């Protein structure tokens, strides 16, 4: 328990101390929000789909969550190269607890990041329609964050250096994001929707959008169900791979 807590705290301290990282990681969501939000807004409206900012903001919130969460999982590679991981691995604590502490820490940070983006998008004109659902919305954020933190941990445990990082960004993270319905409404049927159905991120986006602005595609029970199951699965895979790390 203490191990989990102290490693969780470490992730938080690292986050709050690198102001440049906080600001830097807000740049991308901000750009997407403003450029796409105001750029496509009129077209979206003309197509009879309503206010694009309302539609887009939950997607951008989720985007900032998965980037932060995945990165914090991937951070294991850095810790491995620059030593700190060894310090935890030779300590008389179980690797499962180390992994849980790190993952919870990363997920907390990612959720905070998501909440910051929520506030920023409100400055850009986004208005949640249902404030009562906010706690559930935060839960959806936490689940999404946990899921991608665990995925990052799994990837980082299997990779030995940062060489593969670019590969992951371009062939995993970007496709996950663009094919999740974060930027556009999923059509009722078609290849796009089929692909999105197999993308866990789609359910995170859908849950958050459902809770914040009442637009759902899959439905909340399915969203939460899929998120919970996939998160659990990735946590198991992540902790398994993490437990096998040799330095």
């Amino acid at each position, binding site marked *: 328990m203490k191990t989990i807590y*102290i490693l969780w705290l470490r992730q938080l*301290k690292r986050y709050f101390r690198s102001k440049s990282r906080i600001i830097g990681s807000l740049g991308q969501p901000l750009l997407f929000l403003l450029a796409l939000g105001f750029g496509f807004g009129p077209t979206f409206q003309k197509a009879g789909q309503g206010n694009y900012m309302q539609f887009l903001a939950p997607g951008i919130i989720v985007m900032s969550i998965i980037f932060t969460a995945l990165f914090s999982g991937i951070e294991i590679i850095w810790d491995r190269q620059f030593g700190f*991981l060894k310090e935890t691995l*030779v*300590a008389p604590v179980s690797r499962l607890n180390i992994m849980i502490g790190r993952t919870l820490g990363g997920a907390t940070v990612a959720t905070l990041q998501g909440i910051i983006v929520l506030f920023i998008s409100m400055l850009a004109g986004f208005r949640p329609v249902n404030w009562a659902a906010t706690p559930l919305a935060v839960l959806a954020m936490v689940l999404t964050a946990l899921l991608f933190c665990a995925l990052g941990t799994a990837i980082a445990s299997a990779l030995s*250096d940062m060489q593969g990082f670019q590969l992951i960004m371009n062939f995993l993270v970007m496709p996950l994001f663009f094919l999740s319905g974060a930027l556009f409404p999923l059509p009722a049927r078609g290849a796009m929707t089929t692909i999105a159905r197999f993308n866990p991120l789609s359910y995170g986006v859908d849950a958050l959008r459902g809770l914040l602005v009442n637009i759902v595609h899959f439905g909340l029970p399915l969203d939460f169900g899929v998120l919970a199951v996939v998160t659990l699965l990735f946590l198991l895979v992540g902790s398994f791979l993490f437990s096998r790390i040799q330095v």
Partner: protein
Amino acid sequence: MSIIEVKDLTRKFKDFVAVDHISFAVEAREIFAFLGPNGAGKSTTIKMLTTLLRPNSGSMTLNGFDPVTNPKAVRNSFGIVFQDPSLDEELTAAENMELHGVLYNVPRRLRRERTEQLLKFVELWDRKGSLVKQFSGGMKRRLEIARGLLHHPKVIFLDEPTLGLDPQTRNHVWTYLKELNQSEGITIFFTTHYMDEADRVAQRIAIIDQGKIVASGTPLELRTRTNTTSLEDAFLALTGKTIREEEAGSMERMRMMHRAHGRR
């Protein structure tokens, strides 16, 4: 019973045999030097003893426990100062100590007490609230040594602990380690490239080369055996004069990049 016993230990990386059927023992309360040229297998051996790497064959015990089957008991028994830094640079000196203390389950009061005592000893107490990334190489090294001692292990592994330290600090560190060895009976297992240091400090030495132990004994025994007057000459007589190339793996390359460009 010896505190460290190694028998026929072997570790291969693909075709390369890093550690080749080595056997040795370290007695409790001993100051033991493990010497060898670059790439001889020193760090690989330490990694196996400290549960970070599994051997391909052979057996070993540390404080009576097997690192492969009982890693937790082994981890409770040793402290380690790694060859390359393993501090969290985004945390302060005190926070690094605190984190270590919690991981090793040192009770809070004892943790605070020892942190103060150890940081004062390595002369970092004034800087306890500074982020480690602001420290010089020597200060980081001192902090790592202090941290490795926080939980009062039975055995402390020091992998080139004095690399990059000036003679004053080196002397200071060894005085403390020897004192600790005397008063607490901590076994010290260290590697170094400074032969004079090994000569002065070590009670017993094992020399490893190309994965095999080529000689062991007291410094005097090694000198007598090779008919040399200094341990440096004895070392060269035993391991030859060819310069060893360590092939840089991807990890090494990254570290070099890191050194060249600074971090993030």
